[in-house]
């Protein structure tokens, strides 16, 4: 099985999708001959031509508005927003248009073919505007699907599923892992299910939930906890909207403890949604308060990034507190 980093896996998924279906069209800022600032679309223009892989003018609202129209027409657009921090000019198109296209027309029209790819997250010395994790703005929007892969294998399978999904998908790519995450990725076509979490490690004492780049950080915290004899169950949500409450609830019914972690700020973060749902479903089984280990309620810093981030030590402390409650 070939080894790929996450960018190669994403590139490979796009290649497969474009080869299979000529209605798949990739575009965004610098995605053409340059292959995107991270090179996720490398060689796609060479292979499939300028009409199917191209640079757009520098206008995010235009990119997504264009993508909405293209999807409504029946094409399968894969639009790239260069950084998730720059998705906000397109917020209106995504929230008011993409998400509501099917509903408002009584299913006369839909933009289900649309996939929006965008790199998100910190840990790359990117400061305020190259580090944000804006998932919660979008998980508050019925009609969208929000998917976040944690490694190259997941990225390929989930991206192919997103492109073929009958609903529009926001595909958030953890850019810190673009080159750092390397793993076995089958060459052939495969899909992973959207809306299903994955238990990446079984355990009995405490449940840890995360997604994307945070899974690696949770993994390190779990190693520390296991050294102290705390047996952890780890769940990668993979999909935040819809999210797999059943898998998480089932785990918490078993462990009685839950720690959720994300980089985005605490208040209004998606961990709050998980905590509320799980306390409803597992109230009598909870042994300790559900813990959230997140970024601070501040913009994303630069020099003090390490202090801001919910790192493995902070998660480890939360696990200890949860177990010793």
């Amino acid at each position, binding site marked *: 099985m070939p080894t790929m980093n996450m960018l190669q896996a994403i590139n490979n998924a796009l290649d497969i999708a474009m080869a299979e279906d000529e209605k798949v069209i990739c575009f965004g800022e610098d995605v*053409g001959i340059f292959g995107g600032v991270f090179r996720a679309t490398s060689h796609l223009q060479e292979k499939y031509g300028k009409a199917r892989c191209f*640079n757009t*003018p*520098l206008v995010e*609202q235009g990119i997504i508005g264009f993508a909405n129209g293209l999807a409504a027409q029946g094409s399968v657009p894969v639009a790239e927003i260069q950084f998730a921090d720059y998705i906000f000019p397109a917020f209106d198109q995504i929230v008011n248009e993409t998400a509501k296209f099917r509903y408002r027309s009584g299913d006369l029209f839909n933009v289900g073919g649309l996939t929006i790819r965008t790199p998100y997250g910190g840990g790359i010395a990117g400061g305020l505007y190259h580090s944000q994790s804006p998932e919660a703005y979008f998980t508050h929007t019925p009609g969208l699907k929000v998917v976040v892969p944690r490694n190259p294998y997941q990225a390929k399978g989930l991206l192919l599923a997103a492109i073929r999904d009958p609903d529009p998908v926001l595909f958030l790519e953890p850019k810190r892992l673009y080159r750092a995450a390397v793993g076995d990725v089958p060459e052939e076509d495969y899909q992973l299910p959207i809306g299903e979490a994955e238990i990446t490690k079984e355990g009995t004492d405490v449940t840890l939930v995360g997604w994307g780049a945070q899974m690696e950080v949770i993994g390190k915290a779990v190693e520390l906890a296991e050294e102290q004899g705390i047996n952890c169950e780890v769940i990668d949500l993979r999909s935040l909207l819809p999210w797999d409450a059943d898998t998480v609830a089932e785990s918490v019914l078993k462990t009685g403890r839950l720690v959720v972690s994300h980089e985005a700020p605490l208040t209004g973060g998606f961990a709050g949604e998980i905590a509320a749902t799980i306390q409803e479903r597992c109230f009598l089984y909870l042994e300790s308060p559900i813990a959230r280990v997140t970024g601070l*309620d501040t913009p994303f810093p630069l020099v003090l990034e390490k*202090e801001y981030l919910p790192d493995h*030590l902070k998660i480890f402390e939360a696990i200890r507190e949860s177990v010793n409650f």
Partner: protein
Amino acid sequence: MMTQYAHQPAFLTGDEFSIPTFSVLSPDGELYSGADTPPLEQARARRIYHAMLATRILDERMLAAQRQGRLSFYMQCTGEEAAVVGATAALDDADMIMAQYREQGALMYRGFSIDEFMNQLFGNELDYGKGRQMPIHYGSRKLHYMTISSPLATQIPQATGYAYGQKMAGKGHCTLTFFGEGAASEGDFHAALNMASVHHVPVIFFCRNNGYAISTPAVEQFAADGIAPRAFGYRMHVIRVDGNDVLAVYEATRQAREIAVERNQPVLIEAMTYRLAAHSSSDDPSGYRSKDEEEAWRIKDPLLRMQKWLLAKGWWSEEEETREQETLRREVLGTMKRAEKRSPPPLDSLISDVYADVTPALQRQFDQLKRHIRRYPDAYPRGAQSLDLDVRTDTDTQGEA
């Protein structure tokens, strides 16, 4: 406006208009025939050139420092110094500048010290931005230079608003906003121009058309003849200028300022130039443009052009050039060494300025963070550094193993 009727269909494309490029100095540093020398006295001319030279040298040294791993990121103004400094020099020093990110020359002209540049670049305790933004995101209240924001074009409609406030204040000031031809594709650009025109705002929209938005060439950015014709759609004054010709830029901006301040009319200036350097230290232009193309523009170097003109006028000398270059290089290196040794901003800079006052909820998060850092000081060397000064309280030690 009165409707004019035609009884045969006629489609217009805009090709009917052709916008010339105002230029004064040839690449040899000589005045074109028919061109006038703008009203630019020796002292100001030397101040302009010095700022251009200092910007070039700062950029060279800091890119090298980035390559050595001393700096996380850098962006050069190289090739666009005449456009940026020439425009700034035509303003009143108290006029507002709202730049994109490649306009350090404007700050240099206004007297931002090398030390001030360095403190931002290294995000140390003296950085006005408190180490929160990536390198080159400068700002200076005293020099009327709005702090840079990375998202493109956001400053353009803000400039319209700022300038409207200046008009209301009635002190005869205006705002100049810089942006690239790529950023002019954003919706914010169009909103800004329309509102400025409708509300008679003293704002100058200064487009640095440098040919590229990262890898995307201008021909893939717009189909029209540059940015300038867009002004017609908003019934706005517009001029296109050779951006590598500092005299043309200066004179065009000087007159634009008169239109803005004296007549409360916005002006669009399109400066034709070239981004000689990579987009940023993270970029490699060899993937999207040729060396030959770069060389063709290197010949039109704006510094060289102004230097030739100054030398011919006897306002500058070869000896001064050598001496100044050496002095500036020494200053940049010495200042950098001091700046990179300074402490990082204190830990509480994480939570200040989110609001005017820290909220109780955020204070609780911060107290928890401090307890955590005290438990693992080695994992957070920067944060622990400023915590050493804090007195440990009873509540801080509660629950510690």
